[in-house]
């Protein structure tokens, strides 16, 4: 899907990326590239390797072939960790900690954007007033919103969002789109997996379809 490389190096690029599990290719080899200010929608049916692709790009899985470049240089684990914020299926929230305490820990782990405070992020995702609510008492959608707040605070320019719309109500879907839009306007980029049932964020998007044709 990549055309001629642009003059400036893309925020994220992958060449010939492929992953096999038990000698069965899960996806690829595929090429992709995402510029700053762009979103890449990764579409495909269940089991076509959307989650695996994101985990490979994040560095949770090791690719069997191909390489990942960030800002035009082949990226090791540490560069990727600085550049990438990953929202997976597991929320990474401790059930016995409050929303604010969870957020504070995750900020301590991943860093925080200057001039962004956890309290503001909670308000943005609609969890104002739930600062002290234990994560175990939050609904699945509210947990997702809390994860989105973590993402919002992260200094990483590249968001990898695995099914960000799952469990969210209409307003939540709108919230994801707004957040992705704001992040892209600020010079970030995002990879979003979806099976296509939801509205895409209203931004410059590329499309990558995994499955039989990929």
């Amino acid at each position, binding site marked *: 899907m990549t055309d001629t490389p642009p003059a400036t190096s893309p925020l994220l690029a992958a060449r010939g990326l492929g992953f096999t599990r038990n000698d069965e290719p899960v996806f690829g080899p595929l090429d992709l590239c995402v510029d700053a200010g762009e979103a890449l929608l990764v579409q495909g049916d269940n089991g076509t390797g959307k989650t695996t692709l994101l985990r490979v790009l994040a560095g949770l899985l090791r690719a069997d072939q191909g390489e990942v470049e960030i800002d035009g240089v082949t990226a090791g684990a540490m560069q990727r960790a600085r550049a990438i914020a990953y929202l997976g299926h597991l929320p990474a929230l401790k*059930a016995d900690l409050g929303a604010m*305490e969870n957020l504070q820990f995750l900020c301590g782990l991943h860093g925080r954007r200057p001039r962004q405070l956890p309290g503001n992020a909670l308000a943005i995702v609609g969890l104002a007033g739930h600062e002290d609510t234990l994560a175990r008492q939050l609904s699945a959608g509210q947990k997702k919103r809390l994860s989105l707040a973590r993402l919002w605070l992260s200094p990483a320019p590249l968001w990898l969002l695995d099914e960000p719309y799952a469990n969210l109500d209409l307003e939540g879907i709108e919230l994801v789109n707004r957040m992705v839009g704001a992040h892209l306007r600020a010079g970030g980029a995002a990879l979003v997996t979806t099976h296509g049932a939801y509205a895409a964020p209203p931004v410059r998007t590329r499309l990558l379809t995994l499955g039989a044709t990929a």
Partner: protein
Amino acid sequence: MNAPTLASSARALLVRDLRLLWRRRGDAFQPALFALLVVVLFALSLGGEAESLSRVAAAVLWLSVLLAGLLSLDTLFRGDADDGSLEQWILAPVPLAWLVAVRVFSHWLATALPLIIATPLLGELLYLPSGQLPVLMASLLLGTPLLSLLGAVVAALTVGMRRSGILVALLALPLYVPVLVFGAGSVAASAQGLDAVGALLLLGAGLVVALVLAPLTAAAAIRIALS
């Protein structure tokens, strides 16, 4: 604060673990209660005779501490693996081995330290000769962190499995045996009037080696378990 440093990430993790410990403070006493159980049952089965008890007191205390540590080993990474926290640790811009080391330290604080503090009391139950207490405390202070670090490698290896209770014990026990031999041995040596420093120094040397190698090994095992 933009990017996290080693110190700031360690502080965040410690604060989180201490908060979790406070939320579930009942759990914190479990290892100490288990050790108390072992000690009491041992005293009962030996008939409560002061003379026969005081001869084995140090060995029994060491064994109860070791078994209590073994019991709490599975909680080291299990919760963080189940809720996805370990994924975020891997993706954090600080080395995973560093986070593992901090986690082992906080786990040691939560499970081993209460036991060490309770040891003088448990020693009274077993008529531990008061002359042996300083050596016993020193060997426990050197030995329990070593047990935690060795246990962390085993816990990391089994973190990908759903149920790993007995497997953890089977894998950890051979690694624990030398620590037990030197730990209990140092007290036995001092009881016979011999010099206990040699065994304590060996424990210390083992601790230094494990401090460097165990977090790296455990981090590699976690990466494999989660992929």
